[in-house]
């Protein structure tokens, strides 16, 4: 057994997710990702079961582990009670821990996710916040959403929300003492180190790619825009 396999075994999700795969392929048949990407959850479990560190390192540096949508449909159907989705979560965690995520196009997307979702948690108390739902980032929100945004105070008041207000309610302001507690939890549990790892490794890759990573809150830097929008043609699609 190699060091990487040992690391995976320290993740309880990995322990829960793999109980001896029989290669039946049920997970692949049910997988929404396998319909659109060049992807088979069965192969991932197969590769991990080799316990071969060179194979596992290849996975950690590949696009493959980032194709899963974590819907966990695989867990329901597996006749051996495996959960390839949990195995993928453990692999992704290790890929970030080792800094390997920047070696793949889909892994590099991590910077955009950290800046959109991670920053929002510490700033607003929620992963998603009304103020961050610009149509330029999410055009499928459509014209009704633009109308809501243009008339936010009135529309949100009409439907009973408490937009940026004190006390309970939808979209309420989260008091500073609560945000401070969240940030402290992130510090104590390694969440802040996780953010830094994503930022620092991405900065190194941006330099290699001759792109600007911008401030840690930037969603307009050339590196952010690249990882957020770009696919190498015909690289990821199911063949």
């Amino acid at each position, binding site marked *: 057994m190699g060091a990487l396999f040992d690391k995976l075994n320290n993740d309880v999700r990995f322990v829960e997710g793999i109980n001896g795969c029989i290669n039946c392929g049920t997970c692949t048949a049910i997988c929404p990702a396998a319909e659109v990407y060049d992807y088979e959850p069965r192969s991932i479990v197969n590769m991990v079961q080799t316990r071969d560190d060179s194979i596992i390192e290849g996975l950690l540096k590949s696009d493959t582990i980032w194709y899963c949508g974590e819907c966990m449909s695989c867990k329901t159907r597996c006749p051996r009670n495996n959960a390839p989705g949990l195995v993928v979560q453990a692999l992704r965690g290790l890929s970030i821990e080792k800094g390997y995520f920047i070696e793949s196009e889909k892994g590099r997307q991590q910077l955009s996710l950290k800046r959109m979702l991670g920053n929002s948690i510490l700033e607003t108390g929620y992963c998603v*916040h009304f103020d961050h739902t610009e149509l330029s980032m999410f055009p499928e929100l459509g014209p009704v959403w633009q109308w809501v945004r243009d008339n936010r105070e009135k529309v949100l008041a009409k439907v009973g929300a408490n937009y940026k207000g004190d006390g309970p309610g939808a979209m309420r302001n989260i008091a500073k003492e609560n945000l401070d507690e969240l940030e402290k*939890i992130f510090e104590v549990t390694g969440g802040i180190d996780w953010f830094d790892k994503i930022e620092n490794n991405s900065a190194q890759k941006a330099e290699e790619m001759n792109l600007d990573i911008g401030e840690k809150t930037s969603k307009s830097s050339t590196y952010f825009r690249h990882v957020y929008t770009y696919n190498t043609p015909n690289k990821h699609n199911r063949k």
Partner: protein
Amino acid sequence: MKKEGKKKIWSEYQKEIADDKFYFVRSCIRQTFFPGSDTAYLKILRDVLGKDVYEDPNHTTCTGIAYHTEVVPFSTIQTVVARNFALMRENGYENYTPSCVTSFGIYSEILDTWHHFPEEKQRTRDYLRKATGREFEEPANLVHTSDVIYKFRNEIAAKAKYRLVNKETGEPLKVVDHIGCHYSKMFPSKGVGGAEYPQVLAGLVETFGGEVIDYPERRHCCGFGFRQYFVQANRGYSISASKKKFASMEPYKPDLIITNCPGCNYFMDRWQYALEEMEGKTYGANGEGIPVLSYEEVAGIVLGFDPWKMGLQMHQTDIEPLLKKIGVEYNPDDKYKGPNGEDLGLPKGLKFIKD
């Protein structure tokens, strides 16, 4: 099979749902995109059913979306969840009711982890104490808010003003139920009816007089996929999954899609709009979309709530065709007005609205 045998099997797919004194926590997506549905839920529970529902302004996200995009590590989400549990007990409640299906899956996963790996629970206790000085206990009862509406479906139906029946024909409306993956695919025993025969929405629809459609892709994911939506480069994954479902349900001519997950509601609603823009294709009757509503929005409609105070005008796919089929008395002119009747103009470029 004898009826007794069927009953025995079915009993294994039931779960305990508390009767009162609920600690309510918000969803990132529902409170942002469908805030009126939260309003409807609280009105149904408090005003119609007379239940005690407490919302603590100090609770926060569970960080589930960030966890499922690998932005937040497992140790961090466990501790944020433990903080929310601590707040519940500090306020004197023990029945935890998240509005979000991703959250419900997160809470279920973490409770299961703590059961199998007590050292994770102990480490979480230590982290929470160090970070906040708080102590936590697990909830006595953890259910999704759709479970609560399901539990009280007969009481709601008894007070209903309308039924899910076509006013013109007298026929039951045909309804597609879409269950969020993380409601019962991870832990089937945690969902009413399990993963194979979830009843949490179907039971509601039938109680309100509608007919549930069984179609080939009924259990397929809506396509959220977390990073597969949030990163623009990946959205082909997301819209493809929804399109597969729309194409599969289209021959059955559904009048309504009902969901229990805020994310699913968002995608089934918005991807219909995007597919119309991209391909000129609509999946409802007469070139319209198929209205997509949550369980509490449907309950609110049958109870006769004002659709615009429930925020149904915030859906991109127009829901008025459904209101007309049911025969709901409502004021169409108030749809795009402010809280005091102010004219806010119309959304520009609407296609699902017929002249």
